[in-house]
């Protein structure tokens, strides 16, 4: 029995090591080839070069719009996430607290949107008629709109765990709805707000399809769109494509390794609920 256990442990470790290599090898290839010359990078070998070509990175920064698209991505992610948190926290709080049929119906109507697919062609028509097409504001507003359903859903469940006595005692002290919400409720919602921020922020940062439909001008492109455009133009120059991939991945991987606890718990919220 002991020997069987030991053998099993070896098999488990072997399986996990192989999986780790499968996950990490592509990263190694991309990183090591991003420092090679055009000709060497075409071989896509895993052995790093002894003569790193740092200028690949300079070339990508210069030709790939990296800085502008990075700032665009930061802007979209930050503003859309902040906007989503504000509107969904307010809505979820009131919809959870009010005891009326109307609020129940509004809540169900909002939650229904979790599964709803976007009708992109019609969305363009709507954004166009509101003069929001090809605009950063239009994209951000759409991000908030598309996150309302899920954000309201997960915050709604959390609000009911905050005792009503908190609001009522603040009301007795003379606080109005806005003050109660911002000074009493919001701080107590912090854990679920972090979760919502992670879900929304990751979604916006990694989104590709919405800017593809909604933004024409490359100066407004986020990183996903800009790296795709770059790949289209430099498909034969893998060294540059690899350098662009590295620069796109590094910020998000760094954030993951630092904030792993929040990201993992944020993205797995709901797994133990119900």
């Amino acid at each position, binding site marked *: 029995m002991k020997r069987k256990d030991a053998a099993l442990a070896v098999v488990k470790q072997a399986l996990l090591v192989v999986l780790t290599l499968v996950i990490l090898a592509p990263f190694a290839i991309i990183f090591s080839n991003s420092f090679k010359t055009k000709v060497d990078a075409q071989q896509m070998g895993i052995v790093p070069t002894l003569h790193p070509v740092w200028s690949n990175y300079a070339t990508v920064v210069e030709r790939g719009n990296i800085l502008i698209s990075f700032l665009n991505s930061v802007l979209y992610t930050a503003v859309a996430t902040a906007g989503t948190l*504000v509107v969904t926290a307010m809505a979820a709080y009131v919809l959870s607290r009010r005891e009326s049929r109307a609020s129940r119906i509004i809540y169900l109507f909002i939650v229904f949107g979790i599964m709803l697919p976007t009708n992109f062609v019609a969305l363009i028509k709507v954004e166009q008629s509101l003069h929001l097409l090809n605009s950063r504001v239009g994209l951000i507003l759409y991000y908030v709109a598309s996150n309302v359903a899920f954000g309201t859903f997960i915050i709604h469940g959390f609000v009911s765990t905050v005792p009503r006595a908190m609001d009522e005692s603040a009301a007795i002290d003379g606080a109005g709805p806005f003050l109660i919400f911002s000074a009493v409720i919001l701080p107590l919602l912090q854990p679920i707000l972090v979760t919502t921020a992670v879900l929304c922020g990751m979604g916006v940062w990694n989104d590709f399809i919405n800017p593809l439909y909604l933004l024409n001008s490359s100066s407004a492109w986020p990183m996903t769109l800009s790296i795709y455009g770059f790949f289209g133009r430099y498909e034969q120059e893998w060294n540059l494509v690899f350098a662009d991939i590295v620069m796109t991945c590094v910020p998000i991987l760094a954030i993951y390794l630092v904030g792993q606890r929040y990201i993992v718990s944020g993205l797995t919220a709901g797994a133990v609920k119900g």
Partner: protein
Amino acid sequence: MTRNRLYPLYFVLPALLLYVGLFIVPSLIGVGYSFTDWNRYSADIHFVGLDNFRTVFTASKHYDVYIVNTLVFAVVSNIVKIVPALFLAILLCGNVKGKNFYRTVLFLPTVLSFLVVGLIFRSVLHPSTGLLNGVLRGIGLPFLAGRWLSDPNLVWSSIIGVDAWKGLGYVMTIFIAGLQAISQDYYDAADIDGAGWWSKLANITLPMLMPAITINVVFGVTYGLKVFDIIYVLTNGGPGRMTEVINTAVFNEFASGSYGLGTALSTLLLIVLALIGIPLIRTMTKKEVES
């Protein structure tokens, strides 16, 4: 009712306005446009009844194939992730050296965009110099090396494989969160009864893991039906148009100016998701009320 004065309905207004204006309205007018001949080349829009849907279901146009592709992708890509992820989660909740390291690594691809993952695998699956074929030749299996993204017999497996590389860690992590919430007492009691590994899996783990399984299925199926990025980057619907799905077809119709047809395809996606989604949402919100 006086209590409700503390909770004014106008708090809901910003969320509701955005949600209705930029999410519900496009879906509704999209359904309306799907009965028209709206296109880029004519200023007038005419009602054409079910013509767009007839076109979609005309066999010679192959849209039916794209719809089947979407459904098959939604089912197969999830089976391929959920089953191994479950066993990996059980493995990494047990007594294994370095389990935190493995969890971190396996979750890593989750934070990347599908677009970047697609580009990474355009390199890894490159027929002549890509990593995969290089490894296969290196370990003495050169006959397995293939044209992963252009061979009609391999291309779907390649897409499903890349999708699993990206998504397995996420599904696994949700299972881990679910497993950690199961009390050890159940297993101790089962041990006293002399239950085996499979019996514990079937009688304790799986039933207790239902919330996590539901989340994975709901997220997985919605993702699978809406899939776009990974296919657009890896194959752009090729070779030929054999890996086209609903959302890549919508984009093609949009690009070629057939807006009415594009909205009709989106409307079909809406119907499929609503049929699957409404019962799921109902159980999700019901559970929330009970808990």
